[in-house]
């Protein structure tokens, strides 16, 4: 008799499983979890801490707060950040001051660990929430973060 008992028990467990999927089938309209990605660009907002890429915010006078201290360059585990700097004459004080020439960021090598942003003493670099970073050539992933002609905001010292 356990032979038939086993069959009945087996069929019962199969029906239990089918009830779960059947329930999802009946509620498929509202239950769908698909995100139709390129269509939902307007509503798709990344969280404000999302690590998309490193950017350097500039204000309306084309000024940033990067002093060229190179702490981010040292903190970076895989050499994604290169800073080219020289000492220029500060027009206000008349003293020579360390200024960045180029803040080069290799997005292609970046692992989004966030150590550079942690290390930055002046909050000159921040996370951007942009995540659509694909390009046709790897060289496009090397970015210069400071805009041309930008300079350090007055009074920022590290």
């Amino acid at each position: 008799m356990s032979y038939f008992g086993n069959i009945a028990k087996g069929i019962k467990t199969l029906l239990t499983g089918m009830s779960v999927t059947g329930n999802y089938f009946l509620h498929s309209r509202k239950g769908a979890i698909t995100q139709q990605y390129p269509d939902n660009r307007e509503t798709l907002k990344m969280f404000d801490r999302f690590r998309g890429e490193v950017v350097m915010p500039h204000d309306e006078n084309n000024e940033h707060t990067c002093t060229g201290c190179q702490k981010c360059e040292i903190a970076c585990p895989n050499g994604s950040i290169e800073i080219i700097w020289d000492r220029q004459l500060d027009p206000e004080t008349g003293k020579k001051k360390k200024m960045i020439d180029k803040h080069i960021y290799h997005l292609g090598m970046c692992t989004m660990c966030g150590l550079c942003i942690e290390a930055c003493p002046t909050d000159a670099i921040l996370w951007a929430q942009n995540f659509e970073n694909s390009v046709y050539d790897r060289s496009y992933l090397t970015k210069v973060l400071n805009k041309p002609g930008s300079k350090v905001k007055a009074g920022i010292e590290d």
Partner: protein
Amino acid sequence: METTTITNNFKSEEYFINMGPQHPATHGVLRLLLTIDGEIIKKVEPDLGYIHRSIEKMCERDSYQQIVHLTDRMDYLSSHINNEAVCLAVENALEIDIPERVKVIRTIIGELTRIASHTLWWGVMGMDVGALTTYFLGFRDRELINDIFEETCGARLTMNYNIPGGLMYDIHPNFIKRVKDFIAHFKTKLPEYDKLLTGNVIFQKRMKGVGILTKEDAISFGASGPVGRGSGYSCDVRKHHAYSALDKVNFKEALRTEGDSLARYEVRVQEMWESMSIIEQLIDNIPEGDYKVATNAVIKLPKGEFYQKVEAARGELGVYIVSTGTKNPYRLKFRSPGFSNLSLLNHIAVGGKIGDLVASMATLDIVVPDIDR
């Protein structure tokens, strides 16, 4: 004489099959060299190294802050716990007192990571034995956890939220509410997992008595995590060497004595319940305080050797640091749970069928980057 010739003609022949490195059941780039007789497996020999990045060598040139983010890339499904292991090792070596708040947050996120890892495992496990809907149910619940991580830590998978001395940022204001919502949601969905897969007679038949690992073998093979506990070997690091806030919570160590694939499966499902109970005990009492203590910009560990073990989602993760007093470790060894667990695959798969190999491999829950480091 004639009969012997006939039997010789029908002698079965063993043959080799390359399972992987591109194979749906090997979850990544694991390559198994199978010796098969018909459908019966005679020998399984893993061939590794397809994504070996030599993280241990990279660690030798990195500073201690930078090492943390490399551990994300080992067992990417329990990245937070891996981070925690390195941070704990460094903090213990420096003898820093970590604020209670940090400990509690680390534990909560660690347990969430465990649930996320197990839900993914559950989905993929179902797929390995042929039930395709489980995959989407598992991922649906995992996405909610990933959202929590993304909001607080900034990334969904490789979070790098820990730094030696604390956390990178404080938790997001929405964190507590989101976690509570998730727990409420998952409490209704986890029984569904059982209904869909666990009770199913085909599933039971596929898993019961398959890939049996005795307790002695489990210990000898260094099995840890759900694999060891499925064999009745009490190996939960959270119980025996409690770290962070785990000494303040009550939870049961999931143990089964059967040692077969079903036991390992049940251990993982029960662990999800236990992790939920741990989170529930902690989420309302996150103490106020700092989210990190200041450390030197250049961390130098004292001369000596430091070992820290934590319970990652797949088992015991050990971090063994040999320091000579400089800013880089002299030698850093990760004792990864997957590596030991993989070594017993040959032991449990021999004599089974190809389907059994897939089922027992799924319950070992192998993540290849964890093995290949």
